[in-house]
């Protein structure tokens, strides 16, 4: 009798532990504890509103991008690691897509550090990468509106007396020719995934 009661006790404890584990899993994945990422889809380009300047001094905005499939990446030119790596990856994808791809796509690098990334700074920086890549900068307010539209984030982090770095969303955003958000290419995603994703966004042009 005592032994049986003990067994029941262990069984109940095991069940309780299992239930707790399942609940914890649900809470983190689907429940209220889940991250915001799933809901944070970028707006269609047609619903975004911001005015920036490209590296050749032209006024640009989200409407500039509608009509061709688009790739957008946020970064800053004082970024030594992630930004040159991503711009170099993008240059490699463009090479893989063939020489027409550059004319069929908008490729834009938007700075999250307009204080240091002037039009001239952007012009020099993008010149080291694939010629299809455009560099956009503008006022702090307009940059903030652009980041908001893409549901991206950025944050200035002090690293010294007068030095700072920027934390920022490092994913590449893909939109189809109608300006609808297609998908993201995450940092470190292998090229065999990236190039087909870009092709799909380019093929979506004819779809309604």
């Amino acid at each position: 009798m005592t032994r049986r009661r003990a067994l029941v006790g262990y069984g109940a404890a095991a069940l309780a532990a299992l239930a707790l584990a399942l609940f914890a899993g649900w809470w983190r994945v689907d429940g209220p504890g889940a991250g915001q990422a799933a809901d944070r889809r970028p707006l269609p380009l047609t619903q975004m509103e911001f005015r920036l300047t490209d590296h050749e001094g032209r006024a640009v905005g989200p409407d500039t991008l509608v009509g061709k499939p688009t790739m957008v990446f946020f970064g800053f030119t004082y970024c030594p690691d992630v930004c040159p790596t991503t711009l170099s990856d993008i240059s490699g994808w463009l090479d893989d897509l063939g020489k027409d791809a550059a004319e069929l796509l908008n490729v834009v690098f938007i700075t999250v550090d307009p204080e240091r990334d002037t039009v001239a700074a952007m012009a020099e920086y993008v010149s080291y990468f694939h010629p299809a890549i455009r560099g956009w900068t503008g006022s702090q307010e307009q940059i903030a509106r652009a980041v908001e539209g893409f549901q991206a984030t950025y944050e200035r982090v002090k690293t010294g007396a007068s030095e700072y770095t920027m934390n920022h969303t490092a994913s590449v955003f893909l939109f189809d020719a109608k300006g609808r958000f297609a998908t993201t290419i995450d940092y470190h995603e292998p090229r065999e995934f990236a190039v087909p994703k870009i092709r799909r966004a380019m093929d979506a042009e004819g779809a309604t």
Partner: protein
Amino acid sequence: MKSTPAAMIPAWALAFALAAPALADSGDIVVRDAWSRASVGVSRPGVAYMAILNPSDEPVTLTGLRTDLAERSEIHLTATDGQGVSSMTPAGDIAIAPGETVLLQPGGLHAMLMQLRRPMQDGESFALTLTFSDGGEATVEVPIMGIAARGPGG
């Protein structure tokens, strides 16, 4: 890339080494595939990547970097969170277990070269010294590739 063992081994340690199977010694450290990217001027930080191998039987700890190219140089770690946000922080001391290789590569650990004293020019190179907790050092000559380089091959 070659590494030059700079640790001075005293005579008593040598005698001990002959008796003991192995002695922890950062002088064994091998640095391979070092490369860096050209900088735009001197106002932006530079970066360098490499593979650091500890072929000895004892752990070694990488504690710092030194180069005349920059006022300050530190190992930093880039991390990307679940929301795709990248951030960069000093990595602190890095323990390298026996037989292990620590990779400094794009998007992870990297040598961060702050307040450059001269621009990093494509095709040139610079000396970078790694310092270890046992007082040992390893100096590597780091070739500078273009800004868009993806690895030691360009």
